[in-house]
């Protein structure tokens, strides 16, 4: 039984909220010299002082790196939460024998499609790694590249079966990888404390001279970036794993 006045309540509130949006919009945006200062400083400093060319990555992993620590753990905790919520509460042990999984073929993929998908898997992995490690130079980074990398096992699932997916993404192993990726971020931040600096200070070698910008310049930025890439890859594969396993189990049960 829904509340009888639900729609009336909603439309009254919605009209007022729309008015609030309009009233705030008429005073926006603020003067450019005020609201653009943050941006000007970051854009001006990231190349010279941080030896990276992607200002977004500089903000993410250096200027506002502490936000990204929280962000990484939001992902971490959601993956763990999803595993908890989807766990087989009444599963019988051994229900996961491989032969029970033979109907795990995702879709009736034709041979042509399978060959094409398999051929794409290698380049996908390569492109994912490229996107992760070039994070501080070109658009991309650990989050973006990690998601691309996580699609590779999914391609294998589409072309082959869940069994193959499961064999290459051993669940236990993935959890460890994810945790190491997430924990590494915090540990790198802690290292600065041992050097007598603030948490997350960029203590590694930034680069030689003014214009030395390469895959390894930027001090801690590429290191953290790689840790995030690992964590995101493992996290998303775990998510896919949990949902696929759940779905197939239900198919198995015939519901």
């Amino acid at each position: 039984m829904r509340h009888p006045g639900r729609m009336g309540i909603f439309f009254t509130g919605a009209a007022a909220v729309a008015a609030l949006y309009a009233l705030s919009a008429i005073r926006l945006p603020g003067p450019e010299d005020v609201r653009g200062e943050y941006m000007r400083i970051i854009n001006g400093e990231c190349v010279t002082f941080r030896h990276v060319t992607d200002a977004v990555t500089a903000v993410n992993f250096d200027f506002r790196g502490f936000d990204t620590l929280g962000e990484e753990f939001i992902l971490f905790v959601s993956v763990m939460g999803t595993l908890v919520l989807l766990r087989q509460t009444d599963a019988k042990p051994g229900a996961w024998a491989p032969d029970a999984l033979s109907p795990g073929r995702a879709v009736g993929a034709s041979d042509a499609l399978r060959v094409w998908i398999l051929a794409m898997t290698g380049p996908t992995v390569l492109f994912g790694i490229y996107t992760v490690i070039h994070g501080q130079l070109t658009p991309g980074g650990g989050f973006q590249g990690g998601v691309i990398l996580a699609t590779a096992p999914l391609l294998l699932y589409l072309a082959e079966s869940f069994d193959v997916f499961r064999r290459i993404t051993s669940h236990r192993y993935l959890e460890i990888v994810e945790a190491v990726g997430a924990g590494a971020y915090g540990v790198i931040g802690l290292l600065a404390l041992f050097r007598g600096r603030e948490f997350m200070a960029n203590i590694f070698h930034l680069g030689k001279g003014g214009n030395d910008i390469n895959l390894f310049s930027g001090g801690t930025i590429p290191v953290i970036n790689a840790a995030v890439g690992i964590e995101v890859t493992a996290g998303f594969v775990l998510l896919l794993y949990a949902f696929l396993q759940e779905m197939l189990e239900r198919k198995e049960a015939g519901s």
Partner: protein
Amino acid sequence: MWFPPLPVVIPLIVAASLVAIGAYLPRRVLDLVACATAASVFAICCHLVAASADQPIVYWFGGWRPEHRFALGICFVIDQAGAGLAALVSLLVLAAFLFSWQYFESVKSLYHALMLVFLAGMCGMCLTGDLFNLFVWFELMSASGVALCGYKSEEFGPLQGALNFAILNTLGAYLSLTGVAIVYASVGALNFAQASASLAAHDPGGWLVPIAFLFVISGFLVKAAAFPFHFWLADAHAVAPTPVCILFSGVMVELGLYAAARVYWSVFAIPLAAHSSVTGALFLTIGTLTVIVGGIECFSQRHLKRLLAFSTISHTGVMFLGVGLLSADGLGGTAIYLLGHGLVKGGLFICAGILLHRFRSVDEFELHGKGRELPWTGLLLLLGALGLAGMPPFATFFGEGQLADSARRHGLGWVSGVMMLSGILTSAAVLRIGGRIFLGWGLRRPFDSDEAPAIPMESETHGGHRNTPGTMWLPALALIAGAMAVALAPSVRIAALRAAHRMEDTRGVTDHVLLGTPMAAVPEVHIAPALGELWKPAVNVACAALLALAALFPRALGRARRAVVHAIERAIHPLRAMHTGRVGDYVAWFILGVGVYGAMLVFGYRR
């Protein structure tokens, strides 16, 4: 400067390590590691409280100190209010870990990891000095909270509670983010101090600042269960595992209130200074409505955990009233009250957990008289009820006295009447349910067509249920004893008032953060005389006891009085009908609440 980041970083790293290697460790080792982590965070927070007594600690992550008054990085601004709240958080997490020592089988180490991340998120919210960083920790807290709430995913109740929790809080968080984006579009600043200084120097005019303020705090109002954003809370707290409930009711809800107050005083107090009476009226309205709705709903419940959840709503209303006084002594009173309430509520939820452990139920009627076997638990519940009523020596008594004193001096004497209402209704509810369960008083089934939901619960624990392990009742005893002891010493009350003064000195904090100017000394604070207020808890407890007895023995009332009771029940029926359990209704109320409170601000700020 080792300590400031550690309350957040240590739990995060330990959580990650537990996920990595937890599967190879025995359960007891996991419990020990988790308890040790919470205890060390508690110790660090206590150290931070002491270290920030003189000046707030400003800690710039990555060493990005402000250049030319511009804050590039993220900072923690640690004052005694924030560090003290973080200490309370870690203490309750420790109690929750102790309680779960004998608790359900955890899924490998995931339970411990989720709790530790939850702890980190809450500590981050207490300490941060940056708008977007606040949003990040808020989301971290919500995400781990949702997972913990639905932990017992083999039952339907926790799933529905977690779903309502997730949707309402996520919507609120998006509106908060919208507010942050509006602030950034206006002055290009995310740091509290920077935003405050820029908004004051470049006033955008119109209604921009009040609307941005409302949007930013709306997420926190949802978390703080302010009316009409409170519906999710009762659903989630009723079904979440008991150790999680300790944290949800003891601190998470209060953190929403803290964040709203923190954002007001750190960012918006100066730009909104000319119309502070409107802001105060907003908080007072929210507080009054929340006290009344929470109190009435609390008294109408039969499910002990849901009852305690509504009591939390009612008490948050009291704290909103304290914040709404917009004065340092009001805020200090709120801090004392919050401390007392968090400890008492944690203890009461543990009592509910003990009942669930022994009898697989927390339903008032199912447990009728069964509690006679557990006199000590009953005594703890009674003490908790007295704590809710604001009885001395509970910290709630001193907090309420301080609030009443402050309200009187602001010409808002009615506020203390509303606060008493909260104490009476919630403590009457706990006394009634305690009387029925532990003394076997009253009827065995609902007197008439009672509408309160009887949510089926399954036991959370395995093994023998013949006795109550010490790891369950000891934390309850410690929390309730702590609530009695903590504010007895005037020095604690003085410290709370001084912390509130610091939190309210917006200009001083802004200069301290951006320029490093030391803050001016806190003026002499005066704690309100407590003895003159002794009649209040006496009245509270007397009214609560009468109300509880009337509910237990309705036949003794006689026909005429019963007619009055029925009339009251009919009058409050629409209120109870609002709680439909439908997430669609809750979201509609959410939008209406934002709209109405926004209209209040807009009309109040007419220039």
